[in-house]
């Protein structure tokens, strides 16, 4: 050996040392520090720590028990207010709302006082060439803009070249443009651009059909047991009046045998009452004739410019009354008309493996239940389809991740949140909305807990102990017994002036149309937001910024914290948070001045949230939406469970963001406020 040493030139030795140094630098540098780690986070929207503990104590959650035994279980501080888009944005950005600009489901335009959805905004094509008749040629396609600010944590992982997959995380529509595999979640619209609008074809429309929100009730009739109609689709950009497109659907019924046949395009389905179809592709043609309900529908020979979507049909009844529910038209994952994933074709890749799936942000059709189109059993059937579909995707993705050498996977479940919202009354006989039908389903929530326990078991089994597994939720849950009409309280206490306070006008006006802004000091908008009508900020502001505003806020906080329910004498509001005290970051200026933290079992009413003024301040909540979490943040923390030991017991959502980045040795952005929680 020795004789070869002289053959090594000094240059060669120096080169070797240099190469070794580069290699060491590479493997210890920021991008590769802990590059071979694997971490999975499972997000169970709305999993409440108390409910979870109760289910564990009852022996329903063996996999959760095993996971906790390996590591730790604590509550996870939620956002103020504890609303899903806000909470998940805290997690995504590692900031509080002052840093990511999402303060509520609903924000307001201070120049018009009109509400708008907080997470995204659709911007249509502004220019077009006028053609003959009702036709125009749009120049440009319009776009949807994500209003959430701040970098998503997976952008930082991507920069460090960590293989990352993020499935259905809320408040990420349109998906942030990265090379990371992401599928957009809550906030993803249907093809009509709404959070989800079902169609209900029926020969017997309900009397309050016009009042049903979240759905189109279509009155149909049969001739020789055949009926033709159209499923409402996206607005037609070629139509000057912006009318909706429609997908033709022909319905046949066999009255005697109680079956129906549905035909749309080349698809034919036969259903018996109580059955859902599989996913069916539908097409909306932009050029055609004026059809049912003033919609553009294909002419006898449909002409081009079609966009596709997908639906499932549910046959409620055939005869004597025919009723057919159609899911909101989904952006078809196999052929998305708008991007729902990054890379663009990842939604297709997934669908080719698992079949089509709901792309709509919140697929459980709570609107159909609230509108009386579904009864409890039918809603449960639909919600179970959603969970079945999600479990299939979960198993596929966990199995794939198990094969990966390293990387990060986030997977989101919506079922517990959505079903607890509308089914709380089933397990709570004290609830004002608990009725005989609801009491038939006392175990609904428990059954979901059990199924989610199975998901945890699958992840533990397939990933093994070497993978860092985190199970978390964005917030917990509480019953919602009593509605608080906060705007009515403001009006009756002189903080808000109505143009016409007579009962008929007051009770029927909405969207603040009846408000005399020049004589209004404060108004509530959104579920928790309380705004001061600040001069120079609001169009008709009356309160001077600075001392006058501060004094008014203090006065309101003092009074609201003393607000008692006349029926029980209980305090309705636990805390009122001043935004400048609880938020940090450049967007605090856009926040409501205050956030109302309702007490346990209270919540701001939907009417008040959208600028209506019922005569009373309080009312029993008799609606299906019977559980909620938009109350004081400390009442409804989320959960944090891991197979790793925690270094502290009071983590918040943004700490989990810092934890993920730290796990992979990735530096967090300077304005991220969390700190890692693992030992």
């Amino acid at each position, binding site marked *: 050996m020795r004789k070869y040493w002289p053959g090594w030139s000094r240059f060669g030795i120096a080169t070797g040392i240099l190469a070794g140094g580069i290699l060491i630098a590479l493997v210890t540098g920021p991008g590769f520090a802990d590059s071979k780690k694997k971490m999975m986070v499972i997000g169970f929207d709305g999993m409440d720590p108390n409910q979870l503990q109760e289910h564990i104590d009852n022996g329903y959650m063996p996999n959760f028990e095993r996971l906790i035994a390996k590591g730790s279980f604590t509550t996870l501080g939620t956002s103020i207010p504890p609303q899903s888009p806000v909470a998940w944005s805290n997690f995504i950005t590692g900031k509080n709302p002052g840093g990511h600009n999402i303060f509520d489901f609903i924000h307001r335009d201070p120049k018009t006082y009109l509400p708008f959805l907080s997470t995204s905004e659709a911007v249509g094509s502004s220019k077009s060439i006028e053609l003959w008749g009702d036709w125009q040629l749009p120049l440009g396609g319009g776009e949807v803009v994500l209003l959430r600010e701040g970098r998503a944590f997976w952008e930082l992982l991507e920069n460090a070249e960590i293989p990352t997959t993020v499935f259905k995380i809320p408040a990420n529509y349109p998906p942030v443009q990265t090379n990371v595999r992401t599928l957009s979640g809550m906030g993803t619209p249907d093809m009509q651009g709404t959070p989800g609008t079902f169609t209900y074809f029926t020969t017997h429309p309900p009397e309050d059909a016009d009042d049903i929100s979240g759905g189109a009730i279509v009155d149909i009739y049969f001739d*020789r047991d*055949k009926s033709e109609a159209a499923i409402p689709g996206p607005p037609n950009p070629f139509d000057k009046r912006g009318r909706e497109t429609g997908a033709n659907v022909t319905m*046949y019924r066999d009255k*005697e045998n109680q*079956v129906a046949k549905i035909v749309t395009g080349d698809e*034919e389905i*036969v*259903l018996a009452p109580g059955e859902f179809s599989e996913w069916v592709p539908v097409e909306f043609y932009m050029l055609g004739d004026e059809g049912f309900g003033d919609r553009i529908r294909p002419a006898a020979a449909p002409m081009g410019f079609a966009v596709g979507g997908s639906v499932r049909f549910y046959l409620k009844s055939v005869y004597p009354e025919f009723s057919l529910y159609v899911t909101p038209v989904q952006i078809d994952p196999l052929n998305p008309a708008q991007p729902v994933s990054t890379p663009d074709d990842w939604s297709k890749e997934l669908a080719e493996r698992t079949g089509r799936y709901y792309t709509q942000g919140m697929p459980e059709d709570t609107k159909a239940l609230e509108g009386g189109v579904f009864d409890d059993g039918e809603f449960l059937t639909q919600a179970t389809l959603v969970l079945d579909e999600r479990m299939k995707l979960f198993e596929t993705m966990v199995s794939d991740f198990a094969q990966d050498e390293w990387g990060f996977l986030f997977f989101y479940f919506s079922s517990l949140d959505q079903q607890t919202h509308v089914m709380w009354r089933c397990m709570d006989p004290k609830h004002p909305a608990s009725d005989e039908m609801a009491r038939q389903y006392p175990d609904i929530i428990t059954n979901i807990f059990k199924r989610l326990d199975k998901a945890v078991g699958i992840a533990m089994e397939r990933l093994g102990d070497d993978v860092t597994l985190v199970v978390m939720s964005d917030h917990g849950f509480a019953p919602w017994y009593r509605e608080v009409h906060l705007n009515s309280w403001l009006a009756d206490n002189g903080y808000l002036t109505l143009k016409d306070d007579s009962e008929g006008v007051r009770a029927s006006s909405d969207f603040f149309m009846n408000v005399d802004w020049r004589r209004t000091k404060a108004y509530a908008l959104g579920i928790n937001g309380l705004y001061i009508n600040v001069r120079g900020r609001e169009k008709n502001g009356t309160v001077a910024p600075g001392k006058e505003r501060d004094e008014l806020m203090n006065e309101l906080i003092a009074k609201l914290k003393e607000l008692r329910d006349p029926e029980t004498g209980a305090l309705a509001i636990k805390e009122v948070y001043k935004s400048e005290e609880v938020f940090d970051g450049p967007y605090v200026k856009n926040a409501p001045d205050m956030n109302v933290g309702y007490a346990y079992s209270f919540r701001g009413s939907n009417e008040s949230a959208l600028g209506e003024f019922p005569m009373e301040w309080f009312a029993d909540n008799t609606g299906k939406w019977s559980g909620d979490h938009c109350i004081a943040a400390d009442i409804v923390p989320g959960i944090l469970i891991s197979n790793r030991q925690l270094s502290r017991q009071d983590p918040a959502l943004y700490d989990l963001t810092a934890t993920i980045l730290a796990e992979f040795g990735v530096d967090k952005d300077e304005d991220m406020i969390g700190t890692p929680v693992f030992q």
Partner: protein
Amino acid sequence: MWPIVQAFTKFFDLLIALFQSMHPIIGLTVISILTGAVMLVVWKYTSNQKAIAAAKAKISAYILEIRLFPDDMRAQFSAQRKALLANAKYMTYAVPPLLVVLLPVVAILVQLDVRYQRKPLEPGDVTLLKVKVAEEVDLASVTLDAPAGLVMETAAMRVVAEDEVDWRLRADTPGEYDVTVNAGGTVETKRIVVGERLTKLAEFREQSNFLTIWMAPAEKPLPKGSPIQEIRLTYPEREMKLAGISLHWLLVFFVVSVLFGFAIKGVVGVEV
């Protein structure tokens, strides 16, 4: 006519059976090669080989003229005109053998289509069985019997406006099944295949005529004048993938048969 079609179909059954355990593309490739070879030989004996060779030689000569005299416009135009005429002549010589080749190729394509375009139902798959009947048939009299292995998921859906009765069927276990349709005493069957086998599939049985006999060889046509006019179901599309790329069977057939024909035309001594 039907016995001839049946014999031809049987021949393909035997041929395909040789490749049953292999990737579908292997059998398709072999059949495409054989077709290419056979058609080349047929071409040889049904075409005027000397005339084709002469026409091709003339075309080559005129193209050479075009290249040799690029600056002589008269020569250019003259050579182009003559090349086109020679080409037309070549096409004329090609028509008779093309016509001869066309019929067997179409027959082969039909046989391949009933095997490669669709695949059998898999257990759990759902399909709609549709029976069209004559206007005078009482739809209430139309019934369906499905053997074990297939599950009738719905009662009969009588579509009055279309003189049609539909059933939703679910494939349960692999096998080849005959469902029995009875329309007012007239009984017919329809074959439904469940499983993974590469086999001939008939999506419909229509009343007999020349076209249906040749174009739908997988199952015997319905007798003329039967009150049952059509029995139809849908099989899933077969997707053939090679190295992750989706290939349509027709593309594979044409590319392989044409390439093979061109590759061996020198060996066989055929002017194409």
